[in-house]
């Protein structure tokens, strides 16, 4: 039995290593100061997909990511670990999307890919921590879902059913559901295998169209496309990019305009917190501190 697997992955700012320069003075996020990484739980999901590929020969693993041109890095990282290919969904019209508009965009791209048995991604991304995109993609595709997965135990060829061990509050549960299905993987699942040296050699010059067009100096770290003929003789080095039009997306459901939630206000915690304040045990000092913590919603 061979399976068609789509892995949903996101490039995220590394919010776990936030320094003092992570916030600009106006309170917005200084993205340049934060390294962009492969969302950790998406790596757990990739590993589950690659294990199925090991178990069921002929299985294909395709990555799907949404982001700016530099997010092609996510596809390359997947290829280095054993994925077969990937698509970068990239368009200015996708920008500013909340989880609903994001899941709409991903679902349209998945429909364009067309052939799939399992759609798998991390439970949540570390920049938003919402855990919403997986179930929303499932709903948009009319599929069932298994969230908080820790391990895929078995896929039964005859019944086309998958058995998954998943985390629940205060315990674990083993569930069985039909293919095709959407699965989101918890951080407690097995870590992803490292890059494979041979695959790094094979794919290190794989680039998305925007990366190829960009002047190399603007994108430190991205390999220079110094051998243009390579991309004709080795088509697997071209990372496909899809726009809204490519996936027949409805602009009204994409990006900011497709997002029912709006951000009314942002409060910056980093700046308030990282300078140490010394107080006395006086009534005035203690009351001021409590009032401050209540005002910034640290305590409710």
């Amino acid at each position, binding site marked *: 039995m061979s399976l068609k697997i789509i892995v949903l992955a996101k490039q995220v700012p590394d919010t776990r290593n936030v320094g003092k320069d992570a916030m600009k003075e106006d309170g917005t996020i200084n993205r340049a100061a934060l390294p962009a990484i492969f969302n950790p739980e998406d790596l757990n999901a990739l590993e589950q997909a690659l294990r199925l590929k090991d178990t069921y020969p002929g299985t294909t693993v395709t990555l799907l990511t949404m982001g700016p041109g530099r997010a092609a890095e996510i596809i390359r990282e997947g290829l280095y670990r054993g994925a077969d290919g990937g698509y970068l969904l990239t368009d200015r019209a996708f920008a500013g999307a909340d989880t609903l508009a994001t899941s709409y965009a991903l679902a349209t791209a998945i429909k364009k890919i067309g052939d799939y048995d399992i759609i798998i991604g991390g439970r949540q991304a570390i920049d938003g921590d919402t855990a919403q995109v997986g179930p929303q993609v499932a709903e948009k595709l009319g599929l069932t879902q298994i969230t908080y997965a820790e391990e895929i135990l078995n896929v039964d060829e005859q019944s086309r059913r998958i058995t998954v061990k998943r985390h629940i509050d205060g315990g674990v549960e083993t569930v069985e*559901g039909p293919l095709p299905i959407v699965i989101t993987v918890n951080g407690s699942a097995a870590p992803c295998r490292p890059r494979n040296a041979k695959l790094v050699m094979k794919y290190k010059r794989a680039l998305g169209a925007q990366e190829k067009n960009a002047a190399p100096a603007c994108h430190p770290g991205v390999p220079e496309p110094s051998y243009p003929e390579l991309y004709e003789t080795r088509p697997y080095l071209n990372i496909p990019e899809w726009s809204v039009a490519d996936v027949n997306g409805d602009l009204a459901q994409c990006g900011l305009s497709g997002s029912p939630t709006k951000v009314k206000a942002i*409060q910056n*915690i980093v700046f308030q917190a990282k300078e140490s304040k010394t107080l006395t*045990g006086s009534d005035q000092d203690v009351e001021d501190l409590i009032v401050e*913590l209540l005002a910034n919603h640290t305590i409710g």
Partner: protein
Amino acid sequence: MNNVFVYCELEGTTVADVSLELLTKGRKLANQLNCQLEAIVAGSGLEGIEKQVMPYGVDKVHVFDAPGLFPYTSLPHASILINLFKEEKPQICLMGATVIGRDLGPRVSSALTSGLTADCTSLEIGSHEDKKAGKTYENLLYQIRPAFGGNIVATIINPEHRPQMATVREGVMKKEILDANYQGEVVKHDVAKYVPETDYVVKVIDRHVEKAKHNLKGAPIVVAGGYGMGSKEGFDMLFELAKELHAEVGASRAAVDAGFCEHDRQIGQTGVTVRPKLYIACGISGQIQHIAGMQDAGIIISINNDENAPINAIADYVINGTVEEVIPKMIKYYKQNSK
């Protein structure tokens, strides 16, 4: 119509604490909005279930009782909410930010194209002026939550879409009985009208749940005590502060070894690792082994009479004073200033 709804989560036939906390909050929101509070309960063998929720001020309980509804699986519960909401058109829907709530909420919000905000730490009612569109919205739900790894706090609104959906973690809101004899209406629904047979596709084969004694690991606020607390009685003061703040109590190894606190509350390299948004270290010197278990806390307050305690180096607020003096003051001023 246009009421506040709370989805009540069940373990067996017991309503989860997080749902009772949300009913308490939902009652307050409903009072502010001058509307009713309604609860949804879906499971198996739910005779008399309304007795668990009514005392929190529920005006109407929607009961969905059928064999396939417990243990929870995604599709049947999602169909119940989606179809019920199409009829009832709630303005607000709250659910726990639990594994179940975070599985169910997004599915429902996607089907209804309504907005959903995960893991809110505060919910308020307020207005919003959209200057570009020249429109003012009254009585919106402010969904306040940390984002970006806890480095910012965002206030999210859904101006145009209903219901305004939010999930909230256990322990964030207070659970308070409004009136033990509160009388509301009970509506027993015909489950088959809401859930097509094809929804029962996922089978739960095996299930292990252990009731946790405390939730130190996931607590948003931790009050931790060290050897400086002096005694088991000293820790009683910490439990009192923790109760007020909806926090959990933790301890350093020195305090556990001295018998001030149970071993399962030990924080540090050989204990639990915690990442709360607020960590209040009381009489803890801050050995490196302890710091390893709490250094990722968002805001750290250190209360210590030793100005040179190592923990002060990583604290955001250092209170130079004795725990006996400072903690009762914190309790007092929290009671005075919180709503």
